[in-house]
């Protein structure tokens, strides 16, 4: 431990800083970003293939495979989480009226949650083939 270091080992291990929160927001934004590099490339390549040649049957066939269904679902959920984290920062930066800020962030989370559920249910329906 650096003798000039004033923070206790516990404080360093927790890594929260003086605001006590926010670090996990920052870390999660980077982690989701990292995960989205391969996930978005996979989703984009599959989607591109459908647009070029697949059509309806091709899309159903793709999302009917375990790999296709799981990776598209992961792309969707991680992508929505990443979008919420990013929009939160943008809203906090530009909306200064507290009530507007809270309401807008709530709205973003509500829409993202609904989209996550609709996307999951749709993918499940396609995968099971009802």
């Amino acid at each position, binding site marked *: 431990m650096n003798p000039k270091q004033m923070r206790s080992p516990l404080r360093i291990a927790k890594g929260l800083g003086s605001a006590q929160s926010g670090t996990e927001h920052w870390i999660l934004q980077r982690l989701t*970003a990292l995960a989205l590099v391969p996930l978005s490339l996979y989703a984009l390549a599959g989607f591109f293939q459908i647009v070029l040649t697949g059509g309806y049957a091709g899309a159903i066939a793709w999302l009917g495979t375990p790999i296709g269904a799981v990776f598209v679902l992961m792309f969707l959920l991680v992508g929505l989480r990443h979008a919420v984290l*990013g929009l939160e920062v943008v809203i906090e930066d530009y909306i200064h009226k507290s009530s507007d800020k809270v309401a807008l962030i709530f709205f*973003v989370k509500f829409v993202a949650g609904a989209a996550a559920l609709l996307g999951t249910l749709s993918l499940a*329906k396609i995968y099971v083939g009802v």
Partner: protein
Amino acid sequence: MPSETPAPKTPVRRPLSPHLQIYKPQITSATSILHRITGVGLSVGILIAVAWLAALAGGEESYAVFLALARMPVAQIILFALTAALFYHLLNGIRHLFWDAGIGLEIKTAVRWGYLVLFGAIVLTVFVWLKIYGVAP
């Protein structure tokens, strides 16, 4: 007791730190704000992707409706913009991850990768859409 000074008739013009109107736009600041703008745009884009999945899950008829909507000129322009936004945000996001790791923060490198990211996003977007319209080999 401190004596109260009367409020000045004209507000004191205190010096402000330089802001958007003062700085000359640079590639680093332009790519930074573009990262935010494309990020907000892509948040809407992922909702369109969910709509695509829902249409697909609804069966062939609802999928045909989605395709008819997506083939409208306005929708094509939006989808083109979203493709560009995705490629840009993806490439510039990787640039940001390198910065977070402390790599590439030298001014020369930051500027060079700024132009490269812009160039790469344009090339990829144009290639994909030429392919979609059957022009590219």
